[in-house]
C-alpha cells in the first residue's frame, strides 16, 4: 500500500486533484496533522462560470461581497489588507466568529486563507480561478478544511456545517455563479417570489 505522502503526491498530480484528494482524505489529514488539530473535514467543489477570471477574482477578493451569496454568513468585516472578521449564523439564534488571514494571494488566480487561533472554528481554505476552454469562462474551485470543534458549541456547529457541508458548498458556489452570470440570485421563496396557499 502506498504511503500517505505518495497518495497525496499522486492526488495533486492528477487531472482531477480535488476528487482525488477528497477521495483519499489525505489533504484534510495532512492539514490537521500540520496544525495539531484533533480531526479535519474537507469540502471542495468546482463550478464553471461564464465570466472572465479577473472579474471573478476581484469580486471574491472583496470579502464584503461574500454574504451576498453565502447563505450562513452574517457579515465579513475587513480589518486590513490581509485580515477579516467573519460572523456566521449558527442554529438556535447563535453566531460563531473567527478572524481570517490571507496566506496566499495571486492576482486573478488564487486566494488562500487561514483562521487565526482563538476563533470558534479552525479552518483553512483556498479558492482558485483557472481559465476554462476558450470562450467558456472560468473554472472556480473552492476547498475548505476545518476542524469540527467539541463541546456544546461544537454540536451546534456540527449541525451547521457537518450536516451537509458538501451541500452548503454546492449551494454557495451555485449562487455565486448565478450572481456573476445573471446579476441576481434565483429564488422561489414564498410569498413574494412564488406565492402559495
Amino acid at each position, binding site marked *: 500500500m502506498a504511503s500517505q505522502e505518495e497518495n497525496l503526491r499522486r492526488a495533486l498530480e492528477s487531472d482531477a486533484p480535488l476528487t482525488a484528494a477528497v477521495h483519499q482524505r489525505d489533504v484534510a489529514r495532512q492539514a490537521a496533522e500540520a496544525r495539531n488539530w484533533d480531526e479535519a473535514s474537507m469540502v471542495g467543489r468546482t463550478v464553471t462560470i461564464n465570466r472572465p477570471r479577473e472579474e471573478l477574482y476581484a469580486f471574491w477578493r472583496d470579502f464584503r461581497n461574500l454574504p451576498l451569496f453565502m447563505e450562513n454568513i452574517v457579515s465579513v468585516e475587513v480589518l486590513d489588507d490581509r485580515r477579516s472578521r467573519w460572523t456566521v449564523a449558527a442554529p438556535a439564534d447563535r453566531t460563531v466568529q473567527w478572524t481570517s488571514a490571507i496566506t496566499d494571494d495571486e492576482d486573478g488566480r488564487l486566494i488562500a486563507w487561514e483562521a487565526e487561533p482563538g476563533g470558534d472554528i479552525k479552518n483553512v481554505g483556498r479558492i482558485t480561478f483557472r481559465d476554462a476552454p476558450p470562450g*467558456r469562462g472560468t473554472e472556480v474551485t473552492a476547498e475548505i478544511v476545518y476542524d469540527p470543534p467539541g463541546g456544546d458549541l461544537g454540536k451546534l456547529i456540527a449541525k451547521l456545517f457537518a450536516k451537509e457541508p458538501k451541500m452548503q458548498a454546492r449551494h454557495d458556489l451555485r449562487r455565486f455563479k448565478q450572481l456573476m452570470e*445573471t446579476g441576481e440570485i434565483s*429564488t422561489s421563496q414564498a410569498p413574494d*417570489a412564488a*406565492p402559495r*396557499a
Partner: protein
Amino acid sequence: MRALTWHGKHDVRMETVPDPKIVNPRDAIIKITSTAICGSDLHLYDSYIPTLHKGDILGHEFMGEVVETGPGSTLRKGQRVVVPFVIACGKCFHCEKTQFAACDNSNPAEKADMSEVMYGYPMTGAFGYSHLTGGYAGGQAEYVRVPYSDVGPIVIPDGLEDDKVLFLSDILPTGWMAAENCDIEPGDTVAVWGCGPVGLFAIQSAFLQGAHRVIAIDHHPNRLALAQSMGAQILNYHDVKVREALFEMTGGIGPDAVIDAVGLESHGFTIDNVLDAVKATVKLGTDRPHVLREVILACRKGGRVSVPGVYGGMGDKIPIGALMEKGLQVKTGQTHVQRYTKKLLEMIGEGEIDTTFLISHRLPLENAPEGYKMFKEQQNEVTKVVLKPDWDKEVVQ
C-alpha cells in the same frame, strides 16, 4: 389574488393567495389573460410527481399583460406577452448556445439538489411544475412573477388574439422541435406516436418542415380524426399491429423518422418512489418506456428518433441492440422554447400555422377544478382547456 392550487390527488382548488412581487431586477409581473391546462398538469393532478407541495400554484402555459417591471426588465407596462414555460437566464453557457431548457441558473440553489442527484446535473427551472424544477409559482392565477423577463416573454402584436398565440408557451414549440429533431428530408415518412396536443403539433410541424407523409398513432377516435384532418394517415393501435402496419405502409422500409410524443406519462409516471430511491442514491426502475421501445424497433435503418415525450427515471428493456445495429440517431429533451417563439409567432401572424383547432373548451379560471376533471376523464372529447381569469364563474354541468 385568485389562483388554482394543488392539495393532493385529484384535489385542486381555487384559493385566494398573496400577490407575487418583483424580487429581482430582471423580474416582471404579468396579469394573466389566458392560461391552459397541459397534459403534463394531469400528472400533477394524479399526484404522480412527489416534489409538489400543498398549496403550490399550477400552470405553465400562460400569457397576459405586463403590469410591473423590475429595473433590469426590457418589457414595458401594458405589453401583451406569451411566457415560455422554461425559465432561462440568457447568460450561461447553455443559454448562449440557445439550449434554454438546459439553463444553468434558473433553478434556485436550494431546489437543485434532487435533480442533480437523479441526473448528475441540476435541471432547469420551470413554472408551476413541482420543486424539482425550482418551485416557481405557476400561471393558472390572476398574476405571475416572471424571472429573467428580458429573455423569455415574447411581445404579441395587437390584433393577434390570445387563442392564436397562447400555445407559443409550450406545446407549439415542443411539437416544432420534435419535428426539427427528425431532420426531415424530401420524401420522408414520419411516424408520430400519440395524438395529444404535442403529437398533433408535431404532425403539423413535420408537414411544414417538408415531410412527404406523416403517420399518426393513437387510440382516441377524436384525436385520430384531428390528425387525419391535418393530412396524416392514421393507425388505431386497438385495430392493428402498429409495427406490421408501418412496415406495410412504407414498402418494407420503415418510417424514416419516428416521434415518441407519449413518454412514460400516459402509462402512469409512478415516480412516487423516486424520492426514496434518490435518498438511497439513484437506483430507479420507474419508467414504462413502451412507446420508446416501439419507435426504436419501427424506425428504418439509419433513421432518426425524436423523443419529446417525458421520461423521468430509469427504463428497462430498451432495445439497445436495434438502436445500435440500425445506426439510429436519437434527439430528446425539454423544449428550448425561447429558440422558437419569434419564428413561430411570425408564422402564426402570416397564417402559416393555426393552433386554435386544438381548443375544445374555454372556461373561467374560477372553473379550473372542473376543467381538470373534464380533461382527465374525457380525453377523447377534451383536447385542450383554456382558462380565462377575467371571465365570471359559470355553472358547469
